[in-house]
């Protein structure tokens, strides 16, 4: 009987630890979001969206950083998505059982969690060091390299979920594979692929490390992608580590904006993917 009660005791201790662990883990989410909203909302005003990043000691906004982030993210996603989708298509359709697919899948999984700062160094040596100056293009390229593995992964997974009878039915009508893909498989996997793209956007829109030495930063409004471009994460980094109170406030506000954008994207992605598992 004493053995039984000691087993019971162990069980109670272990399950209690699991409960407290979960509460502990979730409390971080609450603490971080709480601090972000508290500190970030204080600096939220119209000026944040209409004025440029200020020199220390004067007021200003984050307009150039927001615009730069948007432009580089859009270009990065536009470059990375088609490549990722095509590669994912090869892996799920044409080369489902080929050696190449095995290798690419493995390499892609590694790229998926490879340190993003390394991607920054890669683009720096290939583009920035060649051209001789930092540029928005280089930043967008670095982001594209980060988009690719996410899209490859989800495209492949989603196409693999498309039931084979759909493919066979299309083939029975005499459609070649490419037509079957365009008119049947992509449509069936659409929401899954869109989810992947949204997740990729969410991932790159908060990326800082690869932008530090590709697009650098720019205090002013600039539409020239061949010159350094400001971006929200880099501005947050620079302003938060500065000793100036108003810069730090802007950093918090920027952090709030980035987090809201990223969380909205990932919640949308999640809603989309749970809405139709395949369809």
């Amino acid at each position, binding site marked *: 009987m004493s053995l039984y009660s000691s087993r019971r005791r162990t069980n109670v201790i272990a399950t209690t630890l699991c409960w407290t662990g979960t509460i502990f883990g979730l409390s971080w989410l609450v603490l971080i979001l709480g601090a972000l909203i508290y500190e970030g909302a204080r600096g939220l005003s119209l000026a944040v969206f209409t004025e440029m990043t200020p020199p220390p000691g004067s007021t200003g906004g984050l307009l150039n950083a927001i615009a730069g982030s948007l432009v580089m993210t859009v270009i990065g996603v536009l470059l990375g998505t088609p490549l990722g989708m095509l590669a994912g298509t090869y892996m799920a359709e044409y080369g489902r059982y080929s050696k190449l697919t095995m290798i690419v899948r493995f390499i892609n999984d590694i790229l998926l969690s490879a340190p993003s*700062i390394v991607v920054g160094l890669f683009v720096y040596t290939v583009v920035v060091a060649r051209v001789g100056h930092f540029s928005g293009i280089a930043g967008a390229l670095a982001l594209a390299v980060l988009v690719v593995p996410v899209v490859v992964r989800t495209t492949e997974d989603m196409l693999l979920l498309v039931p084979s009878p759909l493919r066979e039915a299309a083939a029975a009508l005499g459609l*070649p*594979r490419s037509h079957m*893909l365009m008119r049947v498989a992509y449509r069936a996997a659409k929401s899954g692929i869109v989810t992947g793209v949204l997740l990729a956007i969410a991932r790159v829109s908060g990326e800082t490390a690869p932008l530090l030495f590709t697009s650098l930063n720019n205090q002013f409004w600039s539409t020239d992608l061949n010159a350094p471009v400001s971006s929200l994460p880099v501005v947050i980094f620079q302003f938060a580590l500065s000793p100036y109170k108003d810069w730090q406030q802007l950093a918090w506000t920027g952090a709030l904006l980035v987090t809201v954008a990223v969380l909205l994207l990932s919640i949308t992605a999640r809603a989309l993917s749970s809405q139709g598992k395949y369809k």
Partner: protein
Amino acid sequence: MEAGFNRQTRDNSVSDLAIVEATPRAPDVDRGKVLGRMALFDFFFHNLTRAAAILVLLILGGVILSLVYGSLPAIEAFGLGFLMTESWNPVTEKFGAVAPIYGTLVTSAIAMIVAVPLGLGIAIFLTELCPHALRRPIGVAIELLAGIPSIIYGIWGLFVLAPFLQQYVQPALISLTGDIPVLSSLFAGPPYGIGVLTAGFILAIMVLPFITSISRDVFETVPPVLKEAASGVGCTTWEVMRYVVIPYTRVGVIGGVMLGLGRALGETMAVTFVIGNAHRVSSSLLAPGTTISATIANEFTEAVGDLYTSALIELGLILFVITFFVLAAARFMLMRIEQKSGA
């Protein structure tokens, strides 16, 4: 002809009538042409997708080659000594990687010590203990924690966590361990707030969601029959986990942990904020230090001279090689558990 195909696939209910209708409209000459065009397009598309897949491989190859190329000057100048020198002096251009490598390993180790038990606990909670209604919301919340960009952890760590640790936790640690031989040197020195311990802690919070969600997924691959059988012979919930679920999924759990480790090793921004960026190996966890990624992030744009830049790129190469092997091992293990659950 094109239109005919369009209609047939768009209509979900393809009736025989539609095909009969479509065929006579297309003369045989056109048919050959259209089929030829389709075959050509198919050939083109097939090769396009294959080229894209190969390009993904080339990107990884490009990353490795460019890092090796970029670090050649440093490799020539320092050779293997780079890995054994502690000094990091941009003025005299003497660079050694010991301090950043040490910092990377120690912060990741702290992160793992905190996050692995916690992550497994949460995963156990989610698969076994949690009321069904809460399962999804808690799972989503944990995954949202994974989605928060690392710079947010950084700014929060710098302005919220570090002052808190400095004021409450670190003095307590110092006075608690003051008389214990080994621990007192681990927690020696003034409480700066920022430092190796804080960085490790932030990393733990960051990798926690990865470890949790992967462990939860692999726990769910355990056949319910096994768990039911264990419960049937009188095992408690904990014993089912301890002696059935965890042994069954061991490989997958280790894979998930290594994936988290890979993240922790390469994490940049959060660490850069709170580590203090000091190039020295200190036995105290409260002292400021540096990691590979933090060094690169802090110094790269300010690096003057080819050798300095090159030394930083070589650091990047070292980081990449370390994470490559950790991630490769992780993927290998996760692949094994997938095969097991598939079979």
